[in-house]
């Protein structure tokens, strides 16, 4: 809109009009809360797509770090040297890439569904005078919340399960020491597990916002008549 050549007066008039349609943050938050809790079942399904992806990712990262701990343990006890670290490294990267892919597909799929099944609602909101950016804002907030919640629980469950598994093998102390161990070597830099886990958390939230952004933006841009026609 701003890029169109317009006279000064026209510009000013447009800005005045735009500022006359508002959606206060308090109401945005209230609507997001209602959307999440009233459709609680749906929200859980959406979040579980993210949950599963991030749980898998963090389990893989944890497993990789714990394997290193175990390896050093074995080495120090038996005095054996050198397993093929290059091969192990390649396998870990492959696993991480796969789990990221699974996470992305899961997240994109659940966000896409949760937006498209609400096309009609989006069309209605536009009929009531909502600006495109209100719609986008509502979905960003909702997906960010669901993304954070899903990633957080996913991380807790993923690492928790792996901690329990490795605690059974090598004791709680060693299992917990995996947190400081390298989980991945990327371009010569060792990434400690706790950094990997935090990055995973952020990736989960970021991916879910990105995945919601595109369909929400597209739905917001649709002529209301087309959005209203869609049935789900």
């Amino acid at each position: 809109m701003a890029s169109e050549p317009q006279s000064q007066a026209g510009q000013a008039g447009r800005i005045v009009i735009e500022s006359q349609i508002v959606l206060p943050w308090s109401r945005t938050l209230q609507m997001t809360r209602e959307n999440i809790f009233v459709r609680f079942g749906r929200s859980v399904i959406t979040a579980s797509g993210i949950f599963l992806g991030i749980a898998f990712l963090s389990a893989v990262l944890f497993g990789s770090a714990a394997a290193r701990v175990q390896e050093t343990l074995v080495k120090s006890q038996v005095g054996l040297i050198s397993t093929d670290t290059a091969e192990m490294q390649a396998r870990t990267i492959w696993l991480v890439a796969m789990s990221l892919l699974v996470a992305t597909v899961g997240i994109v799929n659940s966000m896409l569904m949760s937006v498209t099944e609400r096309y009609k609602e989006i069309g209605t909101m536009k009929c009531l005078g909502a600006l495109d950016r209100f719609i986008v804002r509502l979905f960003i907030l909702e997906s960010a919340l669901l993304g954070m919640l899903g990633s957080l629980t996913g991380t807790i469950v993923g690492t928790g399960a792996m901690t329990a598994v490795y605690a059974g093998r090598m004791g709680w102390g060693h299992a917990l020491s995996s947190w400081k161990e390298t989980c991945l070597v990327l371009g010569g830099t060792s990434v400690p597990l706790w950094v990997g886990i935090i990055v995973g958390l952020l990736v989960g939230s970021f991916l879910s916002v990105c995945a919601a952004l595109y369909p929400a933006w597209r739905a917001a841009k649709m002529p209301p008549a087309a959005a209203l026609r869609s049935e789900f």
Partner: protein
Amino acid sequence: MTTASVYEYIVRTKDLMKVYTMGDQEVRAVDGVALDIRRGEYISIMGPSGSGKSTLFNMIGGLDKPSHGTVFIDETDMAQLTASELAYLRCRKIGYIFQTFNLIPVMTALENVTLPMIFAGLSTDDALDKGVELLRTVGLGERRDHKPTELSGGQQQRVAIARALANDPAIILADEPTGNLDLKTGKEIIALLKEMNEAKKVTVISATHDLKMIDVSDRVVWIRDGKIERIQERADIDLQVGQMAGEEQ
């Protein structure tokens, strides 16, 4: 009543056209419609399914863009409006009512009614006061905290009417407002729309094939194959309604 210049027109369409391409065929859903709608009248756009009345309705309401031709609302060419100006128009000037009610499912009746007022910048308190008042006007004062799923079809449509009236629009656009309702409830909704039309001087434009609507209409526009077949004035309608009432019994 004889000359057209007596009336003030709130909506005017000029050579309005909507073309859909289906495969290699062009279908003209609306084909060159010129319609002038008077301020404050109750006008029904009648026609069978697929006649193009909903498409015409959507273009009048700024919900869809015409392929050709123009729609003027209060002498403003809708095609010239930016997205936010259109939103402003939808928010303040037009109230929409749909066949499927289209209430926001997660919100209570009152929240649904106040939403357009929030968009229009009213404070929460003012919006709540007005929302309660509007719900009372449509006879749902007691139901304000109910969710749409807890309301019957007729009640949902009443909420939708209250919501359409939220920002005191000049026009109410009703697309098959009685399409999903039984005979009795449909009649009540039509009566309510007429009441609002008279009390608030709001122009009601309804697209419908419900013949009950003829009773209250000031004018009826008959649409067939995307073209206006004929426009009937109140005086001509009375005669027909008499015949129809006879047929019904």
